[in-house]
């Protein structure tokens, strides 16, 4: 336990976390500090491209094993299944309508790529290796959760409908395409390709992540201010209990597949993290009556900071314990 706390302590005193905290504090203090939308989007494209490419190049270097297929399968299963768990938990802990609960559930089945990136960089700084193909697992987990949520809603007859074209939109969503595409480029061009562009995608990576998390802090903080009173104590409890529970399910899957310590951590992080880009946009189209303030506040204002600060060190500690790594 004290070990975990020590780990969390070291984790907290890093430029990455502190940049997020700075953004959060600035927003809560109502500073006008802001990062232009175009720049924030540019940084997220950079992060997706870099993380995908590095994953692909790492697979190219170490070869693919059966773990790839099994991990992607596990990821898809988790993404389909976790919304059901989330929905049940929300029914117990909150008074949200069926619609709002389903919308929130979709977010928790899907993933947050920034949480994944932050976890990667924690693993790196501790010298823990992970399977390069976890990036592909991340991409595979983005969409299925949305289907589960729509099924949850349609079960009782009204509400969510699968608009024509929505499925294609979700699957060809920019971040999935970029992640998978750059993974394939990394795979094809391998070490040589990585060598060519490493001064762009490797060396400055952590610095860009800092600025991006500064922006995430600003957005999360402003979101919290704008939606004060939207979520109660039960919902906040959900925002912490849900990731802890899903991370344990991720842990079990990871151990069964036989992933490395780092791989287990990343699967736990994927399970535990909640989407805040792809799923909200899909919800605005498919479940427009669900309240965005609820799902954005939970995902971005509660679960994201929890994972970033306490969650990741906890998952690292657990995975290390159980893999003996």
């Amino acid at each position: 336990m004290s070990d975990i706390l020590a780990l969390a302590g070291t984790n907290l005193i890093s430029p990455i976390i502190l940049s997020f905290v700075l953004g959060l504090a600035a927003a809560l203090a109502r500073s006008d500090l802001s990062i232009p939308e175009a720049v924030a989007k540019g940084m997220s494209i950079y992060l997706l491209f870099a993380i995908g490419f590095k994953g692909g190049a790492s697979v190219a270097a170490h070869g693919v094993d059966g773990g790839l297929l099994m991990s992607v399968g596990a990821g898809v299963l988790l993404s389909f299944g976790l919304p059901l768990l989330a929905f049940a938990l929300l029914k117990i802990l909150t008074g949200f309508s069926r619609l709002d609960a389903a919308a929130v559930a979709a977010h928790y089945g899907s993933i947050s790529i920034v949480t994944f990136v932050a976890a990667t960089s924690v693993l790196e700084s501790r010298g823990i290796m992970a399977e390069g193909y976890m990036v592909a697992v991340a991409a595979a987990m983005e969409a299925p959760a949305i289907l589960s949520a729509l099924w949850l809603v349609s079960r009782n007859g009204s509400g969510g409908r699968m608009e024509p074209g929505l499925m294609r939109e979700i699957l060809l969503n920019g971040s999935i395409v970029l992640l998978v595409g750059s993974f394939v480029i990394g795979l094809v061009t391998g070490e040589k390709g990585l060598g060519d562009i490493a001064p762009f995608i490797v060396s400055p990576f952590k610095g860009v992540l800092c600025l991006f998390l500064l922006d995430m802090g600003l957005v999360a903080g402003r979101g919290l201010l704008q939606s004060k009173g939207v979520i109660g104590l039960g919902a906040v409890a959900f925002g912490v209990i849900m990731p802890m529970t899903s991370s344990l399910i991720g842990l079990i899957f990871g151990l069964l597949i036989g992933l490395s310590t780092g791989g287990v951590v990343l699967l736990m992080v994927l399970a535990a993290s909640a989407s805040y880009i792809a799923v909200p946009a899909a919800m605005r189209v498919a479940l427009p009556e669900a309240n965005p303030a609820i799902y954005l506040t939970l995902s971005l204002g509660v679960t994201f900071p929890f994972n970033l600060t306490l969650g990741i060190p906890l998952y690292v500690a657990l995975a290390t314990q159980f893999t003996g790594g």
Partner: protein
Amino acid sequence: MQMHPAKRVEIVIENPLVGRLTNALTEAGVTGYTVVPVHGGAGRSGRWTREGQIGQAGMAMVICLIKPERLDTLLEAAFAVVERHIGVVSVTDTLVLRAERF
């Protein structure tokens, strides 16, 4: 200069729906529109600004100039998309140059 009466329809709608709206307009035979970015706003669903957003969210404004007699077709097509969503629709009388374009 020769001016012709027309209607100016202004629709404020969420970004993820802009494509659906313009497709619906095109299907209804509306061939002209202009999309203007929106930085922020407020309405029944609360106050928001671009800076408080991540990803594809936010809103846009779609402006259509149209012959008066085609207004109803347009409004019906637009309403089918806008109906379940937040946003507003307004219609103003206006005059246009080069009527052959509308």
